[in-house]
């Protein structure tokens, strides 16, 4: 009853001083809005990344060169993974179904006046099924193309549009870093995936990529597909032994390469998300702190403005605790309203995000509860000092206040 009328009156005075209230609540609104939005963003990015990693297939292992450097100081990537390593792995480990060597780079792709900076992928025909790419038009390059170092290219759907518009790309010639390549196929679109767009790339035989475009003799990655999931551990074991031997590593030396399976990639993705969430938490705490100070400031003003009212309330029987409670409730009503507006803006931002990107951002009940809970906690915490000042006012002094 008392609580109810206090809330009612607090809401009425919030409304009566709309502009001031909004300004006071701004920090809370931004803080809570940011929490809601970023949490939904993180969840969406996580779901998306999981989806992508899972879509790669469960039987996948990725061999990468190790980090160079000693004593924890990383100074770039080793250049020790070779096409021979890849061949040896395939030849010696029967559990491997197939594998694809990968060389990466960036190229300037050119066709007539059209120009596009895009990523280059040098690999073999096995790469496509391992990474579940399908051909939309034309054909993929094959082992013969690799052996013969044919200058043929398979391009992503976006690259095709960038270079050819609505024209037919197959059997046309494009220049990759000024070297002529014949386009033999276009891939089916997979959809933009945030920081990497699989539809915007040019794939060529790895032999050509190494010798003629990137100019290296090492690989960036070897993608291995197992016959079945149960073989992954065996492959990992045997591949490690084989590569150590091939790289002439002593007993006491660490691996100069790494082999990761899907579970580990999921873990990496998850830790990236945790960093994001922590960052969001940091931003949110700062805005909630600023918001709390805003609330405290306006509550101090309110207490001063309403000194006389406090005197009257005490005259008619309010105890110190009653006054304390009243102003605490008002602070919580204010910060809670700010929190509610913040939640709404978080919803709107998440909806906009889902509309303009491929991410499916949705706001979880947990983050709403978190946002509201925190904003109300901020009200209690930062409202306490003004409220206790109000409670301690001397009734006579308060009644005499002009």
């Amino acid at each position: 009853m008392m609580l109810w009328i206090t809330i009612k009156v607090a809401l009425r005075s919030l409304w009566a001083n709309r502009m001031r209230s909004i300004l006071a609540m701004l920090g809370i609104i931004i803080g809570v809005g940011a929490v809601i939005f970023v949490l939904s963003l993180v969840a969406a990015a996580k779901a998306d990344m999981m989806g992508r990693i899972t879509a790669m297939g469960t039987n996948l292992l990725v061999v990468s060169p190790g980090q160079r450097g000693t004593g924890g100081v990383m100074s770039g990537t080793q250049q020790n993974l070779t096409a021979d390593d890849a061949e040896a792995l395939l030849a010696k480990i029967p559990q491997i179904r197939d594998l694809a060597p990968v060389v990466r780079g960036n190229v300037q792709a050119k066709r007539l006046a059209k120009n596009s900076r895009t990523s280059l992928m040098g690999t073999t025909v096995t790469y496509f099924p391992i990474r579940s790419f399908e051909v939309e038009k034309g054909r993929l390059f094959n082992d013969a193309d690799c052996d013969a170092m044919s200058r043929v290219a398979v391009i992503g759907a976006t690259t095709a549009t960038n270079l050819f518009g609505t024209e037919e790309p197959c059997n046309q010639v494009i220049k990759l870093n000024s070297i002529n390549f014949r386009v033999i196929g276009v891939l089916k679109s997979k959809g933009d995936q945030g920081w990497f767009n699989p539809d915007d790339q040019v794939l060529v035989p790895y032999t050509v990529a190494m010798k003629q475009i990137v100019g290296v003799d090492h690989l960036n990655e070897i993608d291995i597909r197992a016959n079945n999931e149960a073989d992954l551990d065996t492959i990992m074991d045997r591949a490690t032994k084989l590569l150590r031997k091939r790289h002439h590593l002593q007993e006491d030396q660490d691996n100069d390469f790494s082999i990761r399976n899907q579970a580990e990639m999921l873990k990496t993705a998850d830790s990236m998300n945790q960093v994001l969430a922590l960052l969001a938490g940091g931003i949110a705490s700062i805005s909630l702190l600023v918001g709390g100070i805003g609330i405290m400031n306006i509550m101090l003003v309110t207490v001063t403005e309403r000194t006389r009212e406090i005197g009257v309330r005490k005259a008619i029987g309010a105890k110190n605790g009653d006054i304390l409670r009243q102003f605490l409730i008002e602070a919580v009503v204010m910060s809670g309203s700010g929190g509610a507006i913040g939640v709404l803006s978080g919803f709107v931002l998440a909806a906009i995000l889902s509309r303009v990107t491929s991410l499916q951002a949705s706001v979880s009940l947990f983050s709403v509860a978190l946002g509201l809970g925190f904003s109300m906690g901020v009200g209690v915490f930062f409202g306490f000092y003004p409220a206790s000042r109000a409670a301690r006012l001397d009734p006579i002094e308060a009644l005499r206040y002009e």
Partner: protein
Amino acid sequence: MIHAQDLVKAYELGGQTVRALDGVSVDIAAGEMIAIRGPSGSGKTTLMNILGCLDRADAGSYTLAGEDVARLSGDRLAEIRNRYIGFVFQTFNLLPRMTALENVELPLLYAGKHREARQAAIKAMETVALTDRMHHQPNQLSGGQRQRVSIARAIVTNPAILLADEPTGALDSRTGTEIMQLFKHLNADGRTIIVVTHDPTVARHCQREIYLRDGRVAQPSATEALQEVAP
């Protein structure tokens, strides 16, 4: 009912000590309607605040209904004010953004009597004849109506004593007279009423008066004296 002896209250003002009350003794019996009169600055409000348990005297003794209130804690005094005393102020002091009825309910809510609050508040509004304005906010009411609401708020807990500080000071004389008539009705019901005023015409509505000058009880001079004291 009220027994105060040698009350002293002093204020420091710019290095000077102002003795707002300088040894005031008052005895007020239950059921009296009494005026505390005197020129501005004579200590009337200070006395009323002490009698109303809003303030404590520096020296002297004060017993209210047999209880020595000099040494009570702030919260205990709040309880006494809530239960035994109703205040009526010159400037009404109604709380904004609350309807008349909500204002009147408030003392009962502070008393923890949530269930009776609504009914008692309506009854108090009936007593001051303002039931048609119950759901208006103070700024939608005239001065006289506001003072009626504040009287309703003062009587809603059914206190023994009503303390009014210049209750007609902000009203025109006709409305002021109506308010004094209302006090007389309440007094006829047995309530003790203390009206603080500088105005002889207001004091004339009371049964007797205590005259203050410079913080002491005094005799009014010939020009200050009431022409006739109402019986």
